[in-house]
């Protein structure tokens, strides 16, 4: 028989004094935790509320509504675009570009890094080229990419991919380099072929770096797609924002931005799910992005 106290079990063979200490400490921990949760929730509500209230208060008083709009008008504009389907129409286009660019950039970055790592001497041979490519502001390539690939979906995908490629490439390279010699030697003596060493030790060891790269590049892929849409497009959220802004429809601009925000948060949740599935062995600290 054991005694149930709130959420803890105390074996009844535990002497009375000790049981009392246990019960007191458990109750204290519960109280502190609940207190902290309440404080955190209060701050979250307060900060978001302050942002909205500040925006609401500033709009029309401190800053012309033309430039700032206000939360209510934005919510209305957002809802109107949801109902008439225009938001989904544009969002779908941008989402497609972003996802295609992201997958293309990430997979080619990963494969290029693996290739570089596997070929002896490839890393130093490629270093100047990688440095040049890394140093190039990818955004400056946008007009060129449109010149080369036209105005369809393709140039947007390419630009999004360039934003993703280098980060994933460099992160993967860094991750592949962190494998410990001891780990490799242990499996080699067990009879692992070089291919097996790579597949079973080097690559899994690099995965946390790869996933970190994947996480960092979600907003980057979106930037690529949006910039390309700004330059030349007749659809997509970039086009929507650009068009609304040139007509001084600030609420529509913010509604478009809000749409993008939902997109990034959704993709981030996707990568988090991927991480839980791929990397259950990584001790998980809570990342700043949840």
């Amino acid at each position, binding site marked *: 028989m054991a005694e149930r106290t709130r959420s*803890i*079990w105390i*074996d009844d063979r*535990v002497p009375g*004094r000790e049981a009392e*200490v*246990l019960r007191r400490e*458990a109750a204290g921990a519960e109280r502190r935790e609940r207190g902290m949760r309440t404080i955190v929730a209060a701050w979250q509500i307060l900060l978001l509320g302050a942002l909205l209230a500040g925006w609401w208060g500033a709009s029309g008083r401190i800053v012309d509504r033309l430039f700032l709009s206000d939360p209510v008008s934005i919510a209305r504009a957002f809802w109107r675009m949801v109902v008439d389907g225009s938001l989904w129409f544009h969002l779908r286009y941008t989402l497609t570009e972003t996802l295609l660019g992201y997958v293309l950039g990430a997979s080619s970055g990963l494969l290029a890094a693996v290739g570089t790592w596997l070929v002896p001497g490839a890393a130093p041979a490629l270093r100047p080229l990688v440095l040049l490519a890394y140093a190039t502001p990818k955004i400056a390539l946008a007009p060129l990419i449109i010149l080369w690939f036209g105005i369809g979906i393709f140039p947007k995908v390419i630009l999004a991919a360039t934003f993703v490629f280098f980060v994933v490439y460099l992160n993967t390279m860094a991750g592949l380099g962190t494998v410990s010699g001891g780990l490799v030697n242990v499996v080699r003596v067990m009879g692992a072929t070089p291919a097996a060493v790579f597949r079973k030790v080097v690559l899994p060891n690099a995965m946390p770096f790869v996933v970190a790269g994947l996480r960092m590049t979600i907003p980057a892929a979106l930037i690529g797609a949006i910039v390309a849409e700004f330059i030349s497009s007749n659809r997509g959220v970039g086009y929507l924002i650009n068009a609304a802004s040139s007509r001084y429809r600030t609420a529509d601009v913010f509604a478009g931005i809000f749409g993008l925000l939902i997109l990034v948060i959704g993709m981030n949740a996707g990568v988090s799910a991927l991480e839980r599935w791929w990397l259950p062995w990584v001790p998980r600290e809570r990342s700043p992005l949840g």
Partner: protein
Amino acid sequence: MLEARGVYKVFVARGRAGRRVMTALRDVNLGVRPGEFLTLVGPSGCGKSTVLNLFAGLTAASDGAVLHDGRPIRGINIRGGYVTQDDNLLPWRTTLANAEIALELKRVPRGERRDKALAYLERVGLKGFEHHYPHELSGGMRKRVSIVRTLVDESVNVILMDEPFGPLDAQTRLVLQDELLQLWQGSGRTIVFVTHDLVEAIALSDRIAIFTRAPGTIKEIREVPIPRPRDVFHIHEAPGFADIYDPLWNDLRAEITRGPEPSVG
């Protein structure tokens, strides 16, 4: 000096299936005498390190009293020095800068702290390595720096050492035990030392406290009858060594092989 009176320490963890509680220390009573070298030995997870953390003020007792010179320890006990198993040197500081840090934090003037640190570094044979970074030193040298940086602060009258020589090889370990005794003898300081190694405990200590398996409590406190100064390199040949080793091992063996405690969950 240091004292634990009826101390309980309970940990509350949040597992997948809700909150769990665990007793780490059960009714620990221990008085550390001024100037003595006291060693705590016991099976893994028995709470020896928790006792040191209580003395260092890094954690608070769940019940009972923990005192330093008769006053309850509240918050961090800055009159205690703390030497951990890992050397925990700051990688971005040189040997000298690492040795000075305690004095720097207590706002001792630059010249004075430099002189003190250099004097101690010389005593442990680190002259010539003042401007090396930790990664440029051997494990034994890093351990010397970590001991020096604790001793250098004279406001510290008790040194808490948590298996400080655990990660070292057997020879380096002996050399460092010898150096520690030399540094300690005549310094008037108190040392509370945690180890798994009975021979180490005998070589170093005046008294040895044996813990039971978790939840830990003190099973027995034994005096080490070997006179000082001691030769740590031939300690097993010292008269009286077997008289203390055998009963210690019997105490400890019972704790390692005993059946499970009533569990708390």
